[in-house]
């Protein structure tokens, strides 16, 4: 039987990763009202970029550079996606939803065809090794993920609530017309949001690859998880996304550890269905409908 301490450590680490993914997803929905189904593909982009940069079979750079490269590449692709596609169909939610869905698959399949094929791939960890605290062994990559997630969440909170751009993001998320009245360029704010959210997706992709491994289709499961998390926390709520990520992360870890490893990815779907039926508005946010 796996010890409770191990389960908690694993759950915290994976929940932190989920939080990074979900915040990006919820930011785009909160500000632009877009359910971005290409978010999973941006996770793949980050992972693939880090593979090209830091895997020994490619450039072999330090994993930290792979992390930065993955983040930047995903952010750039996200920005291109917004400028090249999304901004033209922002007012057509169904078209937009279908487009992001298709583009997401297109990006992932492009990664399969042109970069890594169907095989799993790996990158070295930015912080290899382990640390023992109070008799519990913690992997340094898990500590890194936890700390980085905490920093990113806090920074996002400060950015949104304290900076001029952040307040503009809040304003656009509340009312695009109202924001326009006070001179806020909603398109520019949307672009910044896409950049930020895509960078988060890229970071998550690299960290997932460092912690586990990567694959061309690796973005699909996190996308479903992110969807479940933001439904749970409330669409558009950053606070809700963090809480939702920890609820999903802990539930999944406990079920896979104590019931069956085959339940990986399954628990989140069960929770999603139950929540949509029982509390569609989520714990903290607006109603999904």
């Amino acid at each position, binding site marked *: *039987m*796996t*010890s409770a301490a*191990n*389960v908690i450590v*694993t759950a915290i680490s*994976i929940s932190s990763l989920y939080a990074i993914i979900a915040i990006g997803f919820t930011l785009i929905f909160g500000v632009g009202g877009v359910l971005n189904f290409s978010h999973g593909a941006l996770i793949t982009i980050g992972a693939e970029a880090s593979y090209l940069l830091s*895997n*020994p*079979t490619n450039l072999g750079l330090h994993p930290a550079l792979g992390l930065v490269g993955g983040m930047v590449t995903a952010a750039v692709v996200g920005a291109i996606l917004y400028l090249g596609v999304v901004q033209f169909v922002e007012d057509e939610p169904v078209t937009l939803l279908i487009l992001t869905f298709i583009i997401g698959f297109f990006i992932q399949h492009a990664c399969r065809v042109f970069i890594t*094929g*169907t*095989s*799993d*791939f*790996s990158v*070295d*960890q930015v912080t*290899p*090794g*382990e640390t023992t605290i109070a008799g519990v062994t913690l*992997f340094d*990559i898990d500590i890194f993920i936890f700390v980085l997630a905490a920093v990113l969440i806090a920074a996002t909170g400060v950015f949104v609530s304290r900076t001029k751009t952040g307040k503009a993001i809040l304003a656009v998320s509340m009312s695009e017309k109202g924001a326009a009245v006070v001179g806020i360029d909603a398109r520019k704010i949307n672009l910044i949001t896409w950049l930020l959210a895509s960078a988060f997706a890229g970071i998550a992709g690299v960290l997932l690859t460092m*912690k*586990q*491994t990567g694959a061309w289709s*690796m973005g699909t*499961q996190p996308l479903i998880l992110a969807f479940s998390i933001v439904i749970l926390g409330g669409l558009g709520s950053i606070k809700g996304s963090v809480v939702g990520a920890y609820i999903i992360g802990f539930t999944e*870890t406990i079920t*896979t*550890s104590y019931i*069956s*490893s*085959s339940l*990986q*990815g399954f628990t989140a779907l069960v929770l999603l269905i139950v929540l949509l039926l029982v509390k569609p508005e989520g714990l903290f946010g607006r109603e999904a409908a």
Partner: protein
Amino acid sequence: MADRSETRGGGGRDRRSFLKYAGAGGAAAIAAGCKTRDRPGGSGFTTTPGGSGDEETSEGTPVPQPLEGNTIRIGSLAPQPDSFPIGKSIWDSMQMAVEDINQNGIPGIGGRGILGAKLEPLSGNTEASPGTAREEFNRLVQKEGCKATFGTFLTQCTLQIFNPMKATQTVHITTAATGPKPGRIVHERYDEFKWHFRAGPINSYDLAAAELEFLNIYADQLGWSDAAVLIENIAPFDPFAETLKPEVGNLFDSVPVFKRSSSGTINWTPLWDEVESADVDINLIGQALTGTAAVKQWANQSRDFEMGGIHVPSQVYEFWEEVSGACQYVFTMNAVTPQTENTERTQPFMKRYRDRFDTFPVYSGPITYDAVRAYAKAMGRYVLDNDMEEVPTNEAMVEALETYTFEDGIVLPSIQFTPPEADFAHEPQWTLMKDTGVPVWQQWQVDEEVTDDYGVMHSFAPEQNKTSDYTYPDWIDYPSDHPANQ
């Protein structure tokens, strides 16, 4: 074998499909045993450096060339033969075998080609998909006129070509799939499906038996008292799990974990926590799809147990680089490694392959190389023994493959197919690992005497194919009396 040579007519859809293609131009080639005849007067061979071949037998008489002027096409059925290591090894090795035969003749007989007949290899990409495998088989046989096909990775792919094999009466020799079902079908429905043979690897029941034999001999020596077993939950591993489950408990003090791990497992931390908590010495695995993630996380997390069994990714030479050496200490059974000397021909083949393709082949490569040469030799022997002057029919080739033993292998010294009466018919004869030398137990190691900048696929068992001692993970703290410290 004569009493078994009658075949039933091809079944409905396959027969119609066959006739449709035949009507489009393939009928003549198929009726003539899928051979094409070169222009009169031309040998069909090109001269290549060093490839003159023996024009005389060892007794000094000229090698007869009764099949001169014929071209025999053979097909490779490989997944992504340009990139996927298992598929690439099949296709590359088929080309090497064909070139060897065309230049130097049949092993032990000489001449050029198969008694003068030129071999021509054609590539089919199965994409590791059963449906595509079937389409590619039909294309190679019915449109391209291939007389036989080789390869198929994944037993589902092999099974999908059974009906087309029957409809076209075409010999297929499997060289990369381990599922036992094809051999069972040949035994139970011989007249319909006698066209299928497997040159290797040994089937998964035999592989499981080999693992039990290995554990019986080596578990104590290596210091393994308690074991966990995690076998990926995919159909090809079913026989493996079935065989191990009732037996493995007799080989260890305890087996606290015996699980089928999900083929979708990405996060191995919970499972590794469970195995580590069970305080076992060795984690016996069967992994194909999830092997990369499992190994990477095992090494990154410096888990307190050794690991090995059947680990398909570790059989690929590039795996070391792919996982930045995380596979060091992981062991897997294999047919052959770049270091082993299964036979005197193994290392020369490995070196030639390396020189030509800048990598080493996966097990499917040497097996395909052996299969093509065994097929050619069976054809040559059949033609000579029967004083023939034409390419034998496929019916005759089944008889030839059942009759003759191929003594020039690079994986096994000799290949003899099991008879139709065997429970698994037309499979490579295999008794025990100790007797045959296969499977070999390969472990990724660091060995600066071989190379100082890459892992080495050493073999630590069985004795006749051993190239190095077993090594223990350097992050595990073993007691002083443990074999790791001896």
